[in-house]
């Protein structure tokens, strides 16, 4: 095995005692910074999605001096904006048996018992406050005729707890956070740096004290310092080249922090979303998700005969296999994503896809009602494929969507580097081995609005720390490394484009570390990735200079980091000789082909320590303790 094992992680800073009051007690034990002192404490927040935007706004409201960074031209464009379906909250407005405990239970179970109970319980508790906050901000959630909020169901739940704003819930929640952020910008409490990319973390005397950034317009590399740094930079699905992530989504911030000492947890836990528009050709630049909410009314099927060449509408009922309803009668089309994706993969392939059919819903509810619920999604589908889903079933196939893994954090969302906090998709904390639908928005906002602002004072109470500036040796070294890297990327002047390398890496990862993994495939990937990485640094071609806007240069830096992360993902996937959630090892399955977990040997978080490019990482295990939900074989049938 290409790794060594180090000391286990013993302290997650989780308060003892009843799980229901842990968050209260932690908030009480956390030291505070008095309001007059807060303006002398500074925090850098990188990323302006749901987690970063809400954190920067809230820290500004509390009176801290905040600097916020994003690579896009405006904080409003972070990829949270593309989240479609909804946000979970244990409001129980439906009186259908929901509760904080049920949301907690569903999330731990949905994550296939690979998440930390205390964090998930806190998430479920905070979920109700998020909805209140967002409604007060003017988020236009869907409403019933009586003026109250509407909800719908998502995968892995038997209650209706998902609040939504048509198929644009992420957009509306993000605009709420963005507006709160802009209010703080106007108030002078948040200094906004758009079109600015973090390229490294500054660690001085063991503490995260700042970041090195590149101004994407002028090309200038500079430093920013603060008392604490918060990374809210999202997931790393773009390692796979094709994913539902935005083109710019990247792992550079978390990967650079990992190289500076932050442990990276469960990197192999990636979510493949079952309902995406299939690839149409080699030119494909990204994949588009069709919201999970569609499975409330759409029925998934394939022709019984895989070689059936008839158009979907010409295939009679008797010749169709509604395989999710057949295999999982209790949850039907609303099984969790990992289960639906693997079932689709086992029954079809990338070329044929599976059908998502609304004929029954249209017959039952009428076209206007279906249009009201899913109109914008149907339009989007038609725009991309040229087919009309009101008339012919959608053709869909799974695609990379979300990464449950991320930087390791304790209960306070602090990484293993003091002063470095990681929130939202960028951390690993709440979703275990599989995230339930409508829980990403919940987690991003819980972390940013409530958790981080509730505990960061405990760290900032120790500030001010020794002043740092560009002359400090640690800072100067970091800056010169960043400059050197930019220079090298431009100097190679080879004969292959960044895109061609990214495409090749993505294909390799999709084939060997995608929906199904096995030892031989992962070993093959671990041989190929270093070769490809070497080749990248010999042959990549980046035109232009570093002294102004250079989008190829940006992309090159991101892909360079994907190579290193991809290797760690494969090491993690190879070492975890069990199947759980989105991580399916073909060697570990039940006789009916379901994931076979191995709790005796793998009931832990795998947190990896960096030791050098291509060097064996060190594994630190955080044992998972389940006191409130007993790990069992997940059953949705």
């Amino acid at each position, binding site marked *: 095995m290409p790794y060594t094992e180090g000391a286990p992680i013993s302290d997650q800073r989780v308060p003892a005692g009843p799980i229901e009051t842990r968050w209260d007690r932690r908030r009480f034990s956390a030291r505070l910074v008095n309001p007059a002192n807060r303006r002398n404490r500074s925090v850098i927040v990188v990323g302006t999605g749901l987690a970063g935007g809400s954190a920067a706004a809230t820290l500004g409201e509390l009176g801290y001096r905040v600097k916020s960074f994003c690579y896009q*031209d405006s904080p409003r464009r972070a990829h949270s*904006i593309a989240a479609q379906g909804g946000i979970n909250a244990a409001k129980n407005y439906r009186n259908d048996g929901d509760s904080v405990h049920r949301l907690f239970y569903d999330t731990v179970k949905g994550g296939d018992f690979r998440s930390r109970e205390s964090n998930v319980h806190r998430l479920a508790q905070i979920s109700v406050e998020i909805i209140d906050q967002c409604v007060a901000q*003017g988020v236009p959630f869907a409403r019933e005729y009586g003026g*109250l909020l509407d909800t719908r169901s998502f995968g892995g739940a038997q209650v209706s707890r998902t609040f939504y*704003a048509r198929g644009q819930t992420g957009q509306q929640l993000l605009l709420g956070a963005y507006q709160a952020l802009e209010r703080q910008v106007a108030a002078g409490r948040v200094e906004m740096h758009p079109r600015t990319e973090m390229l490294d973390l500054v660690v001085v005397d063991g503490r995260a004290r700042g970041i090195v950034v590149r101004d994407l317009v002028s090309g200038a590399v500079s430093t920013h310092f603060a008392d604490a740094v918060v990374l809210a930079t999202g997931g790393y699905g773009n390692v796979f080249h094709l994913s539902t992530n935005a083109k710019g989504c990247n792992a550079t911030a978390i990967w650079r922090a990992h190289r500076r000492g932050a442990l990276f947890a469960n990197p192999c836990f990636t979510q493949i979303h079952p309902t995406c528009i299939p690839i149409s050709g080699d030119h494909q630049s990204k994949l588009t998700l069709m919201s999970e909410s569609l499975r409330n009314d759409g029925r998934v099927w394939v022709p019984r005969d895989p070689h059936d060449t008839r158009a979907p509408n010409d295939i009679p009922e008797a010749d169709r296999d509604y395989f999710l309803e057949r295999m999982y009668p209790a949850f039907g089309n609303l099984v969790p994503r990992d289960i639906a994706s693997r079932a689709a993969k086992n029954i079809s392939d990338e070329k044929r896809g599976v059908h998502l059919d609304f004929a029954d819903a249209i017959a039952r509810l009428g076209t206007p009602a279906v249009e009201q619920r899913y109109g914008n999604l149907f339009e989007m589908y038609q725009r*991309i494929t040229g087919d009309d889903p009101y008339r012919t079933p959608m053709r869909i196939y799974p695609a990379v969507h979300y990464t449950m893994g991320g930087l390791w954090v304790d209960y306070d969302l602090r990484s293993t580097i003091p002063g470095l906090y990681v929130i939202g998709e960028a951390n690993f904390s709440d979703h275990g081995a599989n995230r339930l639908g409508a829980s990403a928005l919940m987690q991003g906002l819980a972390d940013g609005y409530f958790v981080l602002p509730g505990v960061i004072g405990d760290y900032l109470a120790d500030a001010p720390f020794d002043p740092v500036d560009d002359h400090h040796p640690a800072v100067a070294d970091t800056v010169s490394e960043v400059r050197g890297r930019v220079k090298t990327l431009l100097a190679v002047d080879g004969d292959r484009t960044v895109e061609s390398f990214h495409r090749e890496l993505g294909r390799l990862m999709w084939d060997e570390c995608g929906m199904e993994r096995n030892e031989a495939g992962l070993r093959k990937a671990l041989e190929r990735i270093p070769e490809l990485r070497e080749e990248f640094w010999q042959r990549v071609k980046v035109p232009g200079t570093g002294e102004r806007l250079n989008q190829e240069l940006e992309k090159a830096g991101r892909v360079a980091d994907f190579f290193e992360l991809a290797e760690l993902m494969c090491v993690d996937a190879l070492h975890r000789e069990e199947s759980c959630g989105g991580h399916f090892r073909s060697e570990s399955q039940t006789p009916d082909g379901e994931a076979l977990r191995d709790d005796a040997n793998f009931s832990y978080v795998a947190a990896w320590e960096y030791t050098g490019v291509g060097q064996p990482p060190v594994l630190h295990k955080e044992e998972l303790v389940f006191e409130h939900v007993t790990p069992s074989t997940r059953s949705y049938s």
Partner: protein
Amino acid sequence: MKLTLRIWRQSGATGRLVEYVVDDLSPDMSFLEALDVLNERLITTGQEPVAFDHDCREGICGMCGMMINGMAHGPERATTACQLHLRHFRDGDVVTVEPWRAEPFPVVRDLVVDRSAFDRIVAAGGYISVPTGSAPDAHATPVPKPDADTAFEAAACIGCGACVAACPNGSAMLFTAAKATHLGVLPQGQPERYSRARDMVAEHDAAGFGGCTNTGECTSACPKGIPLTTIARLNADLLRAHTTRSDR
């Protein structure tokens, strides 16, 4: 299929249209994927690729935007450039591609413009002042469904700038009005309704956007179909803001 792309290239204060023939295209590609194909070719032949803004490529982030044959986001109704597919063009078409043209949107490079003026308009008042933690229960204030729907329709704005690019006056009134309407029809947005309208419009004017003369080009170019009635609503709020107490 083959397209002749005449693309605006600019690295300093001025630019020019440069013609590229791209012949290995497929009707299934998006317009941005056609630019990707061109850029791959430019890079491998040692030339600098065309700079253009884009991110989500699913029509929601608002990052992409360009004039395609003189139309903001191209010829398809309610479609962003990233969602525009080549099946809407004919083999052999000549297509002119330019950046948004408006004084408050200076060109950064090629097709990339600076739209930070939009952020400043929102910062001037495009929010409801509700610090985290201060919210009442979500069901404390029911919102009539028609109001919620009107708010949503306006809130769907993606801030791409097509309205400005399409407007003969270079006005950003549709963008400003969309936000004022979204927040102004909801009960939560009432306390700041009039000051919001006043402050956002003041910032709009200060940024150098032109005045609105109701030509309606904005709404027909808008990829999200934000209705022109939002502007009427904003004007009504603005009038009230200027004719009542100065603190409103």
